[in-house]
């Protein structure tokens, strides 16, 4: 060992001792990492929000709709059956009256109302009493603009827009994940009831296509699509697992509480695919 090597060796030894000392001191001052708080439930989405949830932004608000009371936009109530008028029309030369006028004689309440806004179309306005103005489900019709009422302090500036859609009525990735979770939550109890047929059945993933009505009920029989994970051991269970996939959904239908505005937008819940598998 020559001098240079001895020097290098000595430096290395000193360095190692210093390193060990530093680590040992560091250990004395080691702090216990804080215990994690209660687990927070998270969900995994395969996509992140790379697309805008409002890809067609509008500077103007949507066009107003008329109704006696303010409320969220809804479907129009079905037209009531025409009721024959008790008295014939005095002016036969007049054109055929609109059905709305034929249905019922004018009510006193309607006459007492202030003069109608000339910009509204008389034929489409419901002139029945407010308590009669109900939709098919027996609920009052509601609109986004107060009609026929002059209320001080409430803005009545009409919007020049003709767009009917809400600016945000597009399925964002986050909304899709939320809806998928909401559906999965409702289907889960029924999925848990399905009985495991045999070894290897847990490897089968069955896709079923589902069409729903707006009320969350099935619009048609679920259609069994592809099955993945089939092998020689579990092929015998393929039909049964397909049954169980359909049962999982059908038993818990109709679904409730899904957002109406995301029903028939692209990737909406009117049509979706459910992948079902049994736990391993």
């Amino acid at each position, binding site marked *: 060992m020559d001098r240079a090597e001895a020097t290098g060796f000595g430096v290395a030894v000193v360095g190692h001792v210093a390193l060990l000392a530093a680590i040992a001191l560091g250990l004395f001052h080691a702090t216990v990492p804080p215990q994690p708080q209660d687990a927070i439930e998270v969900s995994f989405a395969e996509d992140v929000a790379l697309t805008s949830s409002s890809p067609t932004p509008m500077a103007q608000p949507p066009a107003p709709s008329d109704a006696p009371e303010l409320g969220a936009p809804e479907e129009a109530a079905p037209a009531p059956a025409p009721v024959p008028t008790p008295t014939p029309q005095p002016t036969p030369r007049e054109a055929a009256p609109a059905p709305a006028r034929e249905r019922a004689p004018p009510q006193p309440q309607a006459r007492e109302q202030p003069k109608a806004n000339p910009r509204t179309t008389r034929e489409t306005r419901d002139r029945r009493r407010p308590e009669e103005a109900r939709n098919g489900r027996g609920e009052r019709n509601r609109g986004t603009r107060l009609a026929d009422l002059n209320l001080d302090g409430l803005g009545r500036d009409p919007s020049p827009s003709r767009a009917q859609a809400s600016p945000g009525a597009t399925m964002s990735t986050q909304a899709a994940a939320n809806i998928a979770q909401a559906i999965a939550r409702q289907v889960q109890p029924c999925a848990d009831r*399905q009985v495991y047929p045999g070894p290897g059945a847990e490897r089968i*993933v069955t896709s079923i296509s589902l069409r729903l009505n707006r009320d969350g009920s099935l619009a048609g029989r679920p259609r069994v699509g592809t099955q993945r994970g089939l092998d020689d051991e579990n092929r015998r269970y393929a039909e049964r697992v397909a049954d169980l996939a359909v049962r999982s959904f059908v038993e818990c239908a109709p679904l409730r509480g899904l957002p109406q505005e995301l029903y028939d937008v692209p990737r909406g819940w009117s049509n*979706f695919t459910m992948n079902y*598998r049994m*736990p391993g």
Partner: protein
Amino acid sequence: MRNINVRIARIVTAFCSLLIGTAAMAQTPAEQPAGQEGQDEGQLVVDVTGGQRAALPIAVPYMPTPQAADTAAGNTEALGRQVADIVATDLRNSGLFTPIGPGGLQPVSFPQVTAPNFPYYSTTGAQNLVQGFVQANGNGSITVGCYLYDVAARTELTRQGYVVQPRDWRRAAHRCADTIYSRLTGEGAYFDTRIVYVSETGPARRRVKRLAIMDYDGANHRFLTNGQFTVLTPRFAPNQQTITFMTYEGDRPRVMLYELDSGQTRPLVQQPHMTFAPRYSPDSRYIIFSMAMNGNTDLYRVPVSGGTPQRLTNTPGIDTGGSYSPDGRQIVFESDRSGSQQLYVMNADGSNQRRISFGGGGYATPVWSPRGDLIAFTRTGGFRIGVMSPSGSGERMLTSGGAEGPTWAPNGRAVMFTRGLSSGQLWYVDVASGTTRRVPTPLGGSDPAWSPLRD
């Protein structure tokens, strides 16, 4: 020093290359994610995982008759109740179902057989529903109708009708249960089968052992031999025309053949040597058996019609308990050539013999599953029934101690065996779930052999 630097530089370069290579491998795209293949990209996708390992609740109400009529097996109204009882019992025996009814359920009218009262059955907790009818035909036969429904989906899953002679009404019920079982489990059927076994009675030193045959559930029991000679190891021919077994007739163990139609018995081979442990080939044309000759016991094969036995093994020791694979290409057998009883697999011509079991305590009576995926055996240390793959992997035990002599149900899902080495009872176990059931026998029983599904 320069050389050292060069060497270090090379090492660093190689290390970096290794790292880069590893990173590149890590970036190699893995298999396509299973969840997205073949699905519409523009559609909402919901993933649901759920299920339970439990018995399936299934409603089995009494079966009505369109018109009560007397038959050779009784009134059709009574038959409808009995058929429903058998269907429910079969399903319960499988260990995979919890039948609801027949007692306690609302009576079913004949028109309701095809239009079930689904709202009512959904209140019973049943996931599926079996309905049916029994109808007397003009020609003396009866028709048993069998319908399976999904209560939640309100759909019919399958339906079958069986036209049988009144004496075969139990078979019609078993076949109805088979239809339900197969549709709801995906497995093959096994209720319409028979068992041949050794019926035992009397004290241990003077035990009378008779060959007996019965339905899988113990019904239609009858004896095939009178007990004059002790019999052992009966086996069903896959074509169900003959049964082979070993008898001590004349104090000399030898393999016999019993013809089921005629009831006649004859020796399998005309040999002065001791022959035993017979079993059929899957095509019913051959029987493999053991023969002790010149102090060595080997496996032989002989046509069922008779002829000269063909020797398959020739190693020193006792080679016995041969059982064909379902495709007939391989044979599993037990041998003590290594010093203890172990399992071996060979080609059907005796070539390529290889050991597949290596546990202590010994292995005996191997039987290849009709599916081909498993071999059942008796673990002689403690006498437990187990299964393993044909390669010897995945060994697991199905029973506790005191069990031996496994035989497979034709669907390869259940194994019957003898429990209680002294008293002798027949039991079977569901291979997947491990649930066991006892098969009732009028006397003690041992050495069961399960028949194939009846034609």
